[in-house]
């Protein structure tokens, strides 16, 4: 077997990789303890009894900009008014593109008319990696029992064009609606699209 190319390292990595449990719809959502832009600490268990939305974001990313033409703010208002906890998560590492401080974060929230419950600074990327968050935007819905109900893209057309929002199937909005109605979203997993998260 001259070409026996079994990479022992690769095999070990595969094995190790499978040990770090990936988030799974229908299973308890990965726990997190993180600080928001005001320095306040939030844990997933603090929100027991409430539906939680996680939105990974990066204000300079064109795909995020596309949805902050009004679509994202509308979703935030609709859902938070129905007692949903909406956390906008920034996983950009310090020094990386998209990393912001408190002042910048507050400025972004007010200038864009955003309405999240809190903006989370995940500077070390621990929360992002626990959720296997890859893109901005990347959306998750967690139900009142702490079970992950939806993960994936915000809608069905991966583009940076605002005009595509109206044509797309709003996967995330549909999923949030289903979870609020006590139903399982369908689809519950979709392809996330956007810029890569700058861990």
């Amino acid at each position, binding site marked *: 077997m001259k070409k*026996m*190319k079994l990479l022992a*390292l690769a095999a070990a990595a*595969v094995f190790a*990789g499978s040990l770090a449990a990936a988030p799974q719809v229908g299973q308890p959502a990965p726990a997190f303890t993180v600080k928001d832009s005001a320095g306040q600490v939030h844990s997933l268990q603090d929100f027991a009894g409430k539906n939680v939305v996680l939105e990974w974001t990066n204000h300079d990313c064109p795909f995020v900009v596309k949805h902050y033409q009004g679509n994202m703010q509308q979703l935030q208002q609709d859902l938070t008014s129905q007692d949903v906890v909406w956390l906008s998560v920034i996983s950009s590492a310090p020094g990386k*593109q998209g990393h912001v401080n408190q002042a910048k974060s507050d400025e972004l929230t007010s200038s864009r008319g955003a309405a999240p419950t809190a903006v989370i600074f995940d500077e070390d990327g621990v929360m992002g990696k626990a959720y296997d968050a*890859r893109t901005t935007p990347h959306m998750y819905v967690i139900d009142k029992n702490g079970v992950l109900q939806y993960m994936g893209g915000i809608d069905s057309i991966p583009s*940076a064009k605002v005009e595509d929002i109206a044509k797309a199937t709003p996967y995330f909005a549909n999923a949030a609606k289903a979870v609020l109605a006590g139903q399982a979203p369908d689809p519950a997993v979709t392809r996330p699209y956007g810029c*890569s998260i700058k861990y």
Partner: protein
Amino acid sequence: MLGKFFSALLVSCCLLLSGAVAAHSSGWQQAKHLKAELVSEYQQVMPGQQLWLALHFIPDEHWHTYWQNPGDSGLATSISWQLPDGVTVGDIQWPTPQAFSIPPLMNYGFEGPTVLLSQLTVPADFRGDQLSIRARADWLVCEEICIPADAEFALTLPVGQAAVLSDSATAVIASGNSKLPIPLTVSGSFDLAGGSFSAAIRGLPDVDFQQFFVAATELVDHAAAQQLLFSEGEWLLRQNLNTYFTSAPEHFELVMVSSNGQGYSLSLTLADGTAEMLATTSQGLWFVLLMAAAGGLILNLMPCVFPVLSLKALSIAANSGQRAEQRRDALWYTLGVVLSFVSLALLLLALRAAGSAVGWGFQLQSPWLVALLAYLLFALGLSLSGVVQFGLGLMSAGSGLTQSKGAKGSFFTGVLAVVVASPCTAPFMGGALGYAVTQPPLLALLVFVALGLGMALPFLLLAYLPALAQALPKPGAWMDTLKQLLAFPLYLSAVWLVWVFGRQAGIDAVAVLLCGMVAIAAACWLYGSWQFSRAGWSRPLLAALLLLLSVAVLRLVPDSTAPVTAATDAHWQAWSPDKLAQLRQSGKPVLVNMTADWCITCLVNERVALNTDSSKAALALYDVTYLKGDWTRRDAEITAYLHQYQRDGVPLYVLYWPGQTPEVLPQILTPDTLRQTLERLSSQ
């Protein structure tokens, strides 16, 4: 703030007037961090021509655009075309991609000058002296940050009597072509189990593959390590599944990249067992059915059938006035023949079902069945050679009833033709029976239907094309010669079965089988000579004894088979519920592996983790008996075993350690899984 992004989002689209730049290029469009042009291979085209169009990107250093599967983020470049009626363009021919690792993420795309080729076809009936091409390209260009952009390109090419290559485009087109993966006609199979993607590809060129790219999005975990293993003539691939995986397409493109960077593209097909089984059977199905029909046709030439056919032919030729009635009769006759064959098949299938219900399974893998089939074919060959006549009694019983008239008469003539013809047809029927017992029920039925249709075909043809009657040969001695000649293919089939048996059971067993065949020959000779004289009972009695003897000697075989099969692959034995129960009762550790030929995950596991020296050593060290069950044909006993472990499919690996609950191993085995599990179980 927003304006800034808009300027990045949209590149001003200036449509170029034809003639403003060289006709083969749209001219460069400068976007942020990337300039783009659309290039034509030809500066003048002609109707009926195919040519390459190239979308040519030159991104800034360290900036990249994306492949058809962009990986964990990013966006594949897309082109939408506006072309004159009848002019068509193919999909983008993607160059071999590069992997961009930005831990924990992975992207697939292109850095540096990039050429995306699409093939344009000008129809032969194209009218007009100009071909105007418009294309809108959408791309995402990224370094650390990403900038989406789009641009419109216009090209106007003169159309003439001759096509004229564009010298200045040649380099761009050639560079595009040189970066395309080499398309291969080989196709591989993949399956998904235990959170992994596994693929097996045979027939790849003899190069050292280092990396692969899956074109389906959100299928593999792009950042996870890739396993590539060359083993027993095929490349085996494995990578973890994507967190966002939902469903796999039936087919997708795979690009394999060798150590020198050359890409090869091929198609991967989902191996789900059912597709595989259908594919393997339908491939040979038409051939088998055609052969069965041909066999049925040959039956008509047998001495016991052909005279009947000749008479029928003569009567048809004589009574041209009753054509309609003759046609109806022919159809009823066909129905009778086909239904007789079908009922024979059903009887056989019922026997087979009853047989397997009591654990007496028909499998070509069983040396017993192979030996019996070898006897059968040999005896039938002897019958054709004239040593013995099978079915004489049936012939005399039925001959009177074929005289009946009308539809019912014709139907039963068909039925009886099958029965009456049995002395000659039996040898062929034997072959078909032998084939049918090893096949799925539906296939066995189809074979018998084809056999019947073949047999009835001459009557049908004669009724509809009476002129054919003239073409029929006259009955005569040639019929007997033909019959004797046809014995030899049967002898050869018997030889083949003896060889199969020898492979399974060894040379000593072959000697036993050949002795048995001599006993069969003697029995046939004794019975055959008695058929003529019908005197005394000693000869048929002796024949029956010899027949029993030939079967009895096979009893000597199973004892010798076990060590022989074990010796050919000392590493595992065939699984059976009894064997497992026995081993467990005697307090031995056992590894059970349920597998199937079409299960790629099973294959990769065996090559990577079970057939390795270290696993073999571990099995020997802990004195573990390794039992393998083959679920390729969805064996019912194995299905029941799988259900016992809440599984509906393979692979399933169960390790039994005496005194402990059975341990189910993961569906994806690593080289150390078995050894580590054994170490742990043995120390508990």
